[in-house]
């Protein structure tokens, strides 16, 4: 599944957003359901996540890896998680650009979903992925505003 799109953060410049995005404490607050990021190496973290979407819930264990950092314009993020209800593996490029005092974040990535959620969740995968992204950027906005 290809996921592309963009989000605007009104009140923060790319430098600040870049810093926030690379801060594990902030990342863990922004990733919906994230119960903590634990550093395991240079820009590598172990993640525990309990995703709750409406009546559906599932726990995932996984990793987050950041690479190709070109502050403050772009970096790559790779997320992997697996749990009883399936696994998710995604990698994408995030590009930051200043715009009217805020930041425009463009994202473009591939997500691979497997297991139960892939075999029975087709109808809702896309809507769910977008929702998670929306929530992520809403929280990031909040963080940036503080």
């Amino acid at each position, binding site marked *: 599944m290809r996921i592309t799109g963009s989000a605007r953060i009104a009140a923060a410049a790319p430098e600040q957003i870049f810093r926030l995005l690379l801060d594990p404490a902030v990342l863990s607050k922004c990733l919906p359901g994230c119960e903590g990021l634990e550093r395991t190496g240079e820009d590598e973290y172990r993640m525990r996540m309990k995703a709750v*979407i*409406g009546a559906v*819930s599932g726990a995932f264990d996984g990793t987050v890896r950041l690479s190709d950092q070109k502050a403050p314009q772009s970096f790559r993020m790779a997320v992997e998680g697996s749990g009883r*209800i399936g696994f998710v593996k995604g990698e994408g490029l995030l590009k930051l650009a200043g715009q009217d005092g805020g930041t425009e974040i463009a994202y473009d990535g591939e997500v691979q979903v497997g297991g139960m959620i892939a075999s*029975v*969740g087709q109808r809702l995968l896309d*809507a769910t992925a977008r929702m998670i992204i929306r929530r992520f950027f809403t929280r990031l906005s909040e963080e940036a505003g503080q």
Partner: protein
Amino acid sequence: MIPQNFDYAAPSTIEEALELLADPEAKALAGGMSLIPLMKLRLAAPGRLVDLRRIAGLREIRQDDGALRIGALVTHSEIESSPLVRSRCPLLAETASHIGDLQVRNAGTIGGSIAHNDPAADYPAALFALEAKVKVAGKGTERTLPLEELVVDAMVTALEPGELITEVIVPVEAASTGTSYQKMRQPASGFAIVGVAARLEKSNGRIGSVRVGVTGLGPSGFRARRVEELLDGTAGSDGEIREAAAVVAEGVEANADLHASADYRRHLAQVFTVRAIRAALARAS
């Protein structure tokens, strides 16, 4: 296809139900048409089910103060066949008749459908077009809010944990109002790929009080206000309808899945908006 272990309670009053639902592990069970499949797949694993179906007060349909008050536990087939709904709010009865299949309609409830907020559920189209309100009860609290405030995102509502929908309130429609629900079914489940509900009035050859509700297109159902504005006051010519319908998907992040791409959904939303408005117009007097 076997759920995890869970407790089961079937209270007979709302108060008891709310008490039981204060436990964060508990979940309300209505028709079970959405919740039970999730549990069987172990995508949901509540520790306790609080079955609402024994609560007598939640199964009624009443007319009161120019509104229909529909209990949250009223099933789709009861709405489809209720003489009261059919005569006073035919759009809702028509919409109910499009849901899934007979077995789903016999078990599934309007409250469950609203609470679950599936992006492809049928009711939201009609309920947005009807500017429905939803009555919500919590432990010691009660509030009534417009559907627009209740619906947050795909599968997400503004219900607080432990809160229950108790009633859905829709206006009693004048017989002269024209309404219609038009939908493309997803052939496997019956869910709407896109569904559009329209209601409007006609006086002196002009369209007024147009309301258009859309489901299936975006993360949740919504009211297509731009379409309504463009149509209001027109004579409802084919060109005017098409022009208005053309903007229905503007600003909506369209869903895409195995069954229909985002482009196709946007296109269908226009087609069914035209069709729903035309049909509503033909029925208005």
